[in-house]
């Protein structure tokens, strides 16, 4: 055996011990949670609506029609979709589409915050402008987290993560995965991960139901539940990972990869170093 091989073999044992020491020293912690809610007011200021109309004519009209009545393309009418839909599709960068055939997927937003609020103001005003008396959901307000882990009787306006987890696993986990990591629906529909959606967007998605996701109307899901889910999804962006690296919370498939390729890989290498090829 060569000198190098011998020192490799000598090193193997101590290396194992060092690894063991690293582990024993690793730390446990539980992170704090977010206490704030989120609320957005839709502007009814005529100058905002006017600015929104200009942007709309420039960027949306070609597909959605002059006053959002729907176009010749597959683009749906926007007259009575409501502010929540407009805000959701714009802040998640789904609109404007480049091409009516494209899939409306999440992108970096095309407009800045002011432009978005102007477009939302315009879409919100469309029922009045066109004289329709039907309108869609407005941008939901997400209630703040209670200071305690249990619901606070003196503050009925707050929600808990516990309510959020329950409502989330009941209504959303089937498509978005228990930790919000995303998944797949049949017919090739990708269900996005929720790790990029802020609380308002979650509330909007619940009320608007970006196809093929179903709509959860207030009659099926209270504002309280909606807020709790939004808070819980926010928590899932950076959940307490007391066990170490979260490996995207994909569960057993990711864990299997790590165990076989990394864990067993190291051991196979060690066996190769210790054993001979004779």
């Amino acid at each position, binding site marked *: *055996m*060569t000198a190098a091989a*011998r020192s490799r*073999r000598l090193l*193997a044992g101590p*290396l*194992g*011990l060092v*690894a*063991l020491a*690293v*582990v*024993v020293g*690793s730390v*446990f912690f*539980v992170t704090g949670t977010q206490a704030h809610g989120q609320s957005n007011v839709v502007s009814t200021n005529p100058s905002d609506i006017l600015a929104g109309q200009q942007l709309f004519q420039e960027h949306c009209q070609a597909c959605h029609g002059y006053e959002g009545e729907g176009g010749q393309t597959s683009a749906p009418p926007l007259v009575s979709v409501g502010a929540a839909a407009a805000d959701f599709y714009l802040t998640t960068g789904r609109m404007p589409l480049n091409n009516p055939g494209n899939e409306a997927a999440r992108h970096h937003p095309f407009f800045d915050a002011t432009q978005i609020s102007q477009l939302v103001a315009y879409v919100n005003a469309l029922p009045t402008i066109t004289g329709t008396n039907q309108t869609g959901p407005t941008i939901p307000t997400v209630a703040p987290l209670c200071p305690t*882990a*249990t619901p606070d009787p003196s503050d009925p306006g707050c929600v808990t*993560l*516990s309510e959020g*987890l*329950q409502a989330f*696993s*009941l209504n959303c*986990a*089937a*498509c978005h*995965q*228990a*930790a919000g990591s995303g*998944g*797949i*629906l*049949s017919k*090739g529909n*990708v269900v996005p991960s929720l790790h990029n959606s802020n609380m308002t967007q979650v509330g909007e998605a619940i009320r608007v139901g970006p196809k093929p996701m179903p709509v959860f109307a207030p009659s099926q899901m209270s504002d309280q539940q909606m807020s709790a889910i939004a808070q819980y999804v926010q928590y*899932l962006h950076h*959940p307490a*990972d*007391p*066990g*170490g690296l979260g*490996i995207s*919370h*994909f*569960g*057993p*498939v990711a*864990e*299997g990869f790590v*165990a076989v390729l990394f*864990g*067993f890989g*190291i*051991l*196979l290498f060690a*066996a190769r170093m*210790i*054993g001979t090829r*004779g």
Partner: protein
Amino acid sequence: MSTTEERAAEQKRYAAGKSVLDTVDERFGSSRFLTSVLDKIFPDHWSFMVGEIAMDSLIILIITGIYLALFYVPSSTDVIYAPTSGHVYAPLVGQHMTEAYQSVINLSFNVRAGLIMRQAHHWAALVFLAAVLFHLCRVFFTGAFRKPREVNWIIGVTLWLVVILEGFTGYSLPDDLLSGTGLRVIYSIVEGLPLVGTWIVYDFWGGSYPGTTFLTRLFVIHEFIFPLLIVGLLTAHLMILWHQKHSDFPGPGKTETNIRGSRVWPQYALKAGGLFMIVTGTIFLLAGEIQINPVWLYGPYNPYTVSIGAQPDWYLGWLDGSVRLWPHWEFASFGHEIPNPVFPGILIPGLLFTTIYAWPWLDKKIYSDYGAHNLLDRPRDKPFRTGVGVAAIVFFADLTIACGSDILANDFHVGFERVIEVLQYGALLGPVVGFVIAYKACQALQRTGAHPIQRPLGGVIIRSANGAYHTLSDHHGNGHGDNGHGDNGHGDKADAVANGHGTAEEAPAPVGAADEPAGASD
């Protein structure tokens, strides 16, 4: 003190020590036993150490498992999570859950070193099964299952099965959303069995799903029955190995009737001890740094909720994949509708395992070779067997990938149905392609005599006096009767000399009635 006095004192000490040893020895005959144990010889090819990696992970599993069992509560009693002291996992406060789930949450957040033990236990299980599978492949591809080692093959396959079941029962104990979903799938598969299905699930679950007695039974199975079975089978496995002695690859100085390698003491014990430390270190490294099975995120099991991505652990992935890939055919026999999952969930695994169990005897038929062998085949020496092995690996890999098909489709942005379709063809054609490639590769390697990894294909070309050319491997031939494939560049001889501890040699246990080597100890 003078030298004579020193020597006298030394002799006295020696005599005292010797008399203690003698006292023990006279009663238990231990020195003869110890000598035979410590002088035992093991070949040290690296691939033989993978069985040890499996054994080491098993030891870690048992130790961490005992710790977990001190805190786990196998009860389906409904409780409301409201810990009174220590860390509280806020998102669960006030929720209904079984006592079992609550005890796992407390184990993770409140018990000292509870989480690292849980994680080490789970990582060790995943590594264990990787080692078992690799070990099984090693035994298969080298023909180590041939006479006289068929029984160890049978015990080995049984161990594999029991270890899979042990892993699955462990996965199901926390009673979280994923484990509950997994049990639900198994429940439906078993319930679908014609005639006996409903009875089995009724007896096992003590009524309808999920039942109230099931977790207790599961715990007893996971904690006592399977571990005892595994340790018992493993003891038999190793005793047989000890008695028959380890096989080895052919090489210079190696014959059917000798064994070359390291003695148990000190060389082999040091190697094995070092390996054990590395296995422990690696598993605890994973346990300390990478989170596994965060059951608190999944929430308690509740029959009304499901999560996408609720896969089993990787070693059962092939079963889940088999269910996913099986087409939606419907069968009825004697007017009895057989539920779909029964075929991919029971029939296919049944056929596979029967074939694996029967392989040593199929192999005898295929090669018309009923003799005993202590020298291993190199995989290339048996292209057909190697081809079959590769085909099986491709098939299992395809099913395992199918288990992660939703994550695949999501990550690579391809349609789910597309992925399934590709994998369905993969399951049918992949093994054939794998077989052909392996078969051809074996033949090519036989011709060149090169090692597939270490040396480029080709060999030394020699020009003889009369002008003819031939390669070294042509010269030596390659039948497996020829043990001395000395041209393969292993440098065995040089290694044996430079080894420092010198290569030890021993005769293997008698294998046939005939040529019994003299001096077989044990």
